[in-house]
C-alpha cells in the first residue's frame, strides 16, 4: 500500500528524515522513535502534506502530495491539539465528512456512526472549547475514520484517553486491521503498542533503524544475548548444570538466592533443554521469563548504540 523509496526531507538545515526506504502493508504497524526522530515528518510525507526533498513516496501507487484521489482512502489523526474552537464536536465531524464529498444525509449518517464508535454520542454537542484532552482525542479519531479509509495514520492516538477508552479504541483498531486495512500507529507508550502489534518501524535521528517483526529483530540483536530469568530454590545447582551447555554464555545468581539469570544466543535450544533438567535432575523450577523480550528493551538496545 505505502512505498517509500530512499526518501529524505530537510527543513533548512534541520534534519527531518534521511534516506528511508520501506514498505507498509495491511495490518497494524507501529511507528516508533524518540521525540524529534522524524516520526511526524514521515507521517506528513505519507499524508502528502510535505514533498520529499529526495526520493519518492507512493501511496496506492500515486504521489500523495495534495492529491484528492489518495486522500479519499487515507484517514489522518494529527498530534496537534488545536481545533476550530467555536464548533461543537458533532458539527466538526459533520463538516469533515461533508468535505469528504458525501451529500447531506450520507454525511450526517457517517458522522453519527463515527461519533458513536468513539463513544462520544452523548457529549458531542458541547462546544469544543470545553472539551477535556480525552474527548478532543476521541473527536480527532472520529474525523479520521468517518470516511472509512483504507489507510489510517494515527499520531499518538491514545494520548489522554483513560484506561477504559484505551481498551475500547484498541479493539476498534484491531477490528479495522482485521478488515485488511493498514493502520499505522505512532506512539511513545510501548507497552500499549506491544498489545496492538508485533510489526514495527523504528526511526532514530531521521534514519530507519529497524523494521519488521519485533521477535525477529530481538533475535538479531547479538550485542545483547537473550536474558532469561529462572526462579528456582537451588539456583547454584541449576547454574552448574546450565554452564556446561555450549550455548549458555553466562549465569548470574539473583540477590535473593532464589533466582538465576542466564544469557544465551540460541534461546530455542535453551528452552528445549529445560524440561529435561527440571524433571531428570529434580531441580524445581517455579518461574521462567525473559525480562528483555519486550518492546521497551528492544527499543532501548537499538537506540542506545
Amino acid at each position, binding site marked *: 500500500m505505502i512505498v517509500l523509496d530512499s526518501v529524505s526531507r530537510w*527543513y533548512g538545515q534541520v534534519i527531518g528524515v534521511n534516506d528511508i526506504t520501506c514498505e507498509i502493508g495491511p495490518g497494524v504497524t507501529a511507528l516508533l522513535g524518540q521525540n524529534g526522530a522524524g516520526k511526524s515528518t514521515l507521517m506528513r510525507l505519507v*499524508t502528502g*502534506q510535505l*514533498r520529499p526533498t529526495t526520493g519518492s513516496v507512493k501511496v496506492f501507487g500515486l504521489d500523495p502530495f495534495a492529491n*484528492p484521489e489518495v486522500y479519499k482512502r487515507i484517514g489522518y489523526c*494529527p498530534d496537534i491539539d488545536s481545533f476550530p474552537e*467555536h464548533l461543537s464536536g458533532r458539527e466538526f465531524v459533520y463538516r*469533515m465528512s461533508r468535505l*469528504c464529498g458525501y451529500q447531506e444525509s450520507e454525511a450526517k449518517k457517517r458522522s453519527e456512526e463515527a461519533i458513536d464508535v468513539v463513544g462520544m454520542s452523548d457529549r458531542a454537542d458541547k462546544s469544543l472549547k470545553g472539551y477535556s484532552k480525552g474527548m478532543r482525542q476521541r473527536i480527532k479519531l472520529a474525523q479520521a475514520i468517518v470516511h472509512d479509509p483504507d489507510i489510517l495514520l494515527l499520531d499518538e492516538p491514545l494520548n489522554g484517553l483513560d484506561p477504559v477508552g484505551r481498551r475500547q479504541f484498541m479493539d476498534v483498531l484491531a477490528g479495522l486491521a482485521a478488515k485488511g486495512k493498514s493502520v499505522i500507529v505512532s506512539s511513545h507508550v510501548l507497552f500499549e503498542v506491544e498489545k496492538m502489534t508485533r510489526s514495527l518501524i523504528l526511526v532514530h535521528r531521521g534514519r530507519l533503524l529497524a523494521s519488521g517483526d519485533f521477535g525477529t529483530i530481538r533475535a538479531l540483536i547479538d550485542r545483547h544475548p537473550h536474558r532469561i530469568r529462572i526462579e528456582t530454590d537451588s539456583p547454584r545447582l541449576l547454574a552448574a548444570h546450565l554452564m556446561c551447555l555450549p550455548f549458555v554464555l553466562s549465569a548470574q545468581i539473583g540477590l535473593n538466592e532464589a533466582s538465576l539469570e542466564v544469557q544465551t544466543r540460541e534461546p530455542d535450544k535453551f528452552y528445549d533443554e529445560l524440561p529435561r533438567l527440571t524433571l531428570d535432575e529434580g531441580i524445581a523450577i517455579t518461574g521462567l521469563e525473559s525480562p528483555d523480550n519486550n518492546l521497551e528493551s528492544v527499543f532501548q538496545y537499538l537506540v542506545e548504540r
Partner: protein
Amino acid sequence: MTRFVFSTTLRDLLRPQRLIAWLAVVGMVFVISKVWAVLAADLTGADSFGRVYQAVVLRVVALASAVFATMVLSQEVEQQTIVYLITRPVPRRTLMFGRMLAAAVVSFGVGFLSLFAAGFAVLGLGFFSSPSLIVDVLVLAVGVMAYIGFFVFLSLTISRSLIISLLFAFGWETFVPNMPGDMFYVSILTYLRSAAPEAVMAAGPSLGDVITGALAPKSVSAGLSWVILSLLVVGLWTLCLWWFSRFEYSPREEGE
C-alpha cells in the same frame, strides 16, 4: 463542493462578536462623515461626499479586506487547524476559491454598509437618488476583489502578514497616489478613485486633501482603470489558487 466550503466559511466569518466589531466601524464611518460634513460646510454636498468616499469608505474596504484575507488561510495555519483542511479529498483550488469568495463577500458587506452610512451622513436622504450610486457600489465590489486577491497572496507568502497588509492599506495607499512622477500607477486606490464617477475638484491643498490623497489631480481615464482593475482581480486570484496548490502548508511542530 465549492458551495459548501463557501457557506461554512461565510458562517465562520460572520460570528456574532465579529459582526459587532464591524458594525462599530460602520458607526465610526457615520460619525466621521457627519463631522466632515459639518467642518467642510463650504463644499457642495456631492464634492464632500466624493472626498468622504475616497478618504473613508475606500479605506474601510481596504481594512476589511486585509483583516478577512488573513482569516482565509493564515489564521488557520497559525492555529494549526489547516491540517484538517489540506488532508481532505478536496482539490486545494476549490478550497481556496470558496474561502476567498466568502472573505470577499463579507468585506463587500462591510464596505456596502459604510458606503450607505457615509452617504446618509453627508447627503441625507438625497443620497439614495444620486445617479452615481450604482457605479460607486460596482467600484466597491471590484476594489474588494482586488484587495482580497492581493492580501491573500501576501498571507500565502509572508507569515504574520496582517501588519504588512495594514501598512499597505494605510501607508502605501495614502502616500503613493500623492507622489509626484508616475508612482501613482502602482497603487490600487488610484484606479479605484479614477473609476469612481465623483470629479475631484482641484481645490487648494488643504489638510483634508492630504488625508484623502487627492493632492495630485493626475488620474487615469475611467475606462483604462476598469480594465486594469479587472486584470488585477483575475491575475491575483489565479495566482493565489495556483500558489496554494503548489506549495506546502502543513503546520510545523516546534520540535522538528
